[in-house]
């Protein structure tokens, strides 16, 4: 895959959902801003990547993959409970970055009983995947970046990232696409 840089992306002001519904093929970012002028709810689109097949998923069993760049650990899981931004017939399939937003360590322990990812092996932050990767307990100052996924028949594709991945000054900074 070629290196992607911010110059290749187009910023639009449309709603994330509308773009997802349209099956956007181009990488782009969609921004809204809060009262402080900070970008919020921003989805940055990257080249689509097939990450799983719907029929292969089991509730509580995560599927690991890198996205959007190589080395950016992510995971997809069928939570068994409908959630906002969940896809699939049960609206319960979501994906998140597995890079802790505290200091960048890789989160490995998905606990299906509680639908949380963590504790992080470094400083023990734990994230709630039912609630958009919210920090349950720990030192991270932002939720886990959520990987936006879409369904094409049985195929689940990763399309975009919401939230800044640890280490990056810009989600669109250079990297090797996964």
């Amino acid at each position, binding site marked *: 895959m070629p290196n992607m840089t911010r110059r290749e992306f187009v910023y639009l002001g449309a709603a*994330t959902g509308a773009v997802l519904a349209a099956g956007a093929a181009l990488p782009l970012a969609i921004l809204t801003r809060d*009262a402080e002028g*900070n970008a919020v*709810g921003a989805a940055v689109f990257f080249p689509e990547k097939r990450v799983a097949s719907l029929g292969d998923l089991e509730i509580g069993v995560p599927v690991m993959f890198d996205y959007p760049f190589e080395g950016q650990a992510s995971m997809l899981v069928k939570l068994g409970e409908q959630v906002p931004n969940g896809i699939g017939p049960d609206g319960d399939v979501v994906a998140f970055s597995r890079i802790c937003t505290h200091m960048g360590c890789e989160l490995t322990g998905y606990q299906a009983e509680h639908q*949380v990812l963590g504790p992080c092996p470094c400083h023990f932050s734990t994230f709630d995947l039912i609630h958009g990767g919210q920090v*349950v307990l720990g030192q991270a100052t*932002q*939720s886990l970046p959520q990987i936006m996924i879409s369904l094409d028949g049985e195929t689940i594709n990763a399309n975009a990232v919401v939230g800044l991945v640890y*280490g990056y000054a810009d989600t*669109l900074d250079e990297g090797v696409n996964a």
Partner: protein
Amino acid sequence: MTAESTSIPLPPANAKESIICCEYCPVACGYKVYTWDLGTQGGPAAADNALGVDFPTELLSGRWISETMHTTTIVDGELKNVIVVPDGDIEVVNVGGTHSVRGGALAKKLYNPNGLTNDRFLYPMLRVQGNLVPISWEAAIDLVARLSQYTLDNFDELAWGMKIYSYQFYENVYAASKLAFGDIGTPNYSPHHAPAEGDDVPGLSDCGIDAFSAAFEDDKEADVLFISGSDPYETKTVRFTTWQQPGGAKIIYVDPRKTFTAAYAEANGGIHLQLMPGTDTCLYNAISREIITQGWEDAEFIAANAASRTELDGEGSWRRQMFGLSFNEYRDFLFSNDDFTLQGAESETGVPADKIRAAAEMMTGGTGPRPKATILFEKGVYWSHNYENTASIGSMAVLIGSSGQPGRAISRMGGHQRGGQKAAGYPMDKSPHEYKGNKVEMDTERWFAEGKTRFRWIVGTNWIGAMGASRALAAAAERLTSVGPPVTSTDPDLAYAALTERMDNGGTVIVHQEIYENDSTPFADIILAAGAWGEDNYARNNAERRLRLYEKIADPPGEAKSDWEIFAAVGKAMGFAGYDWADTNEIFEEAAPRSSGGRRDYVALVEKAQADGVRGHDLLRTFGTKGLQTPISLEGGEFVETVRQHADFTFKSNSGKANFVLSDWEAVKERNAILGPVDDELWVTNGRVNALWNNLSDFTRRRISQDRWPMNFLEISPNDATARNIVSGDLLSIESDNVLDQLGNKTKGGFTAVAYVSDIVPDGVTYSYFLYPKQPANSVTPGDSNLQPINLRYNFKLGKGRIKKIGTTELTETMSFAPRNLVPG
């Protein structure tokens, strides 16, 4: 969907760099601040940004900038970019640039005229016919000074009160106490967290041990950490993740709740002593008795360092004379009460006897080599039964020789940082309150509720919410500020006439010096808009006595003034001398002699600065975020720091010896009978959670905290919840008809909270955030200091109430109710 950014501006290589430490917990991590012009930014290459690091940064780099580390604020009159990032080069405290969830969002504390912090108080205000309206500083200072003088002239200095933070930097506390103690001479002065001035841990002090004697490296050096009444992971995060957990000590964790640290302890060879609220004294004494029974005490340490009866008789303090014990007397005391047997203690505390015995063995090594054991504690201990708990845990430390040695210490973990450098001594002789014929510091809340305070200056605290029986205290404030004619004009003379008439009619005038509106503001007649952290140059210690400079990084918003400037202006307006400070450095240097001989002693720093012709603050600045560990001295032109106190086995008593101290468990049991839940009530204890801090003045304006904790919560056990038909997300009322108020009367108290059903709390015990705006848990905690007459502290941890579902919320859609005590398997 959560709120996140897609990019963070990088500081250019020429961005201005400043040093500062975290505002919040007593660990006080070191940070760097970079300031630069809007519309410019650096690049991802190391040479192109001020951090000197390539972006993307590597994991654990300690140099990444999260969205919460950036803001825009006003610097030298201009809106600028500011980032507040952990100091990646620091070799102490937060080694390598780690941070807590609180400190990692320090930038969001700063005033942003276009952001969530733009509701700061910008100018002084006067309440006119019920509304706060802006007035000039000249009028505000004039009114405060004249009302103060009227109080002194027509009543006495006991009618003039100040309620103020104890920690908000040396320079501000010095200026405030110079006015209150030095010139006005009132004992009607108390800190943000207690009804009276004085020692928070008198039992430990009577042991002769300084409350902050240990260093963080002792946590790492120790083989065993006995941690009671404070969850280090929740509230002193970096101390846990940098010093305690990496050190590998086995942890004996004492807490009614099975918190993260409790679960971590159990999963790593430690023990959780899950006692019921209010039973600490019995537990500590049972451990000590078992140690003596087995012959596991440190006999050598005791023989060399514990005071004899003769030495105790020579003590100057009434408390040591009354409660000090020799080792033999202490042993006899422990063996005089069957509650201190293993079985007796199990019955009283709920902790299984085998765990008590195992703790005694783990702390001492039993028949094997003696491990290095450090004892750490905080508010769960001294805001339960203050004197008895601090005396019994302190005595346990003396028994096992845990003081003054690497990895062997006893220390408070601290609630906040240490900035309480006073300008003058407390006028104890004027206090109207006493215990068995001995003067004790004045209970300023009782005095207020009695209507004897005619003028009260509230500085930097949500006073109402922070005190026990807060609903009753609010009612008293409402009553006392409603007396007499209302102020109907901003004309200072007319306002003065109305407010003095209120005083004459038995009412109280309240001045509130603050940065934001809070639950105490509705009772204020005059608002004094204050500056805050980062808005002036200040100095402060952390919990291991590390003195650092907190540089000014932004302007106070609007016309707001630094606290010291306000105190100085009032002092001068009242005709007092000695308030002509040009800046905080002048106060810092003036205050140095007052630190002499204490744990904050920085006399040598100022003496060297003056000898070298530099400013004290500037010399301190050269030590960066590492600072200097006080007390310090000067030898051969170099500073000698104090890593830990009592290293020479000299203790803070007349004899220089350490003391055992009596802890009256029978008195505690009588109190528990008064305070404990009855019928369908449950314990309603309270404290902090890691994503929030104190009165939430910053955290209600911080997205991550509000996403996580949009309202106060009540942890309730699955069994107690089921019995009340409660599930997570329900709206609860917590009510009590039996809250002892400031006058000792039974009153009603209550608050609401969202249910968080969790086995983190045992059956019979619930837990809530202690100072959530509009939902104060302290409305069901006692406000009667007569319950603890030795040093007039509240039993903050011993609230109770009936829990009832009153509705549902939609918070399950947005707020996590997942377990908060999951540890790595």
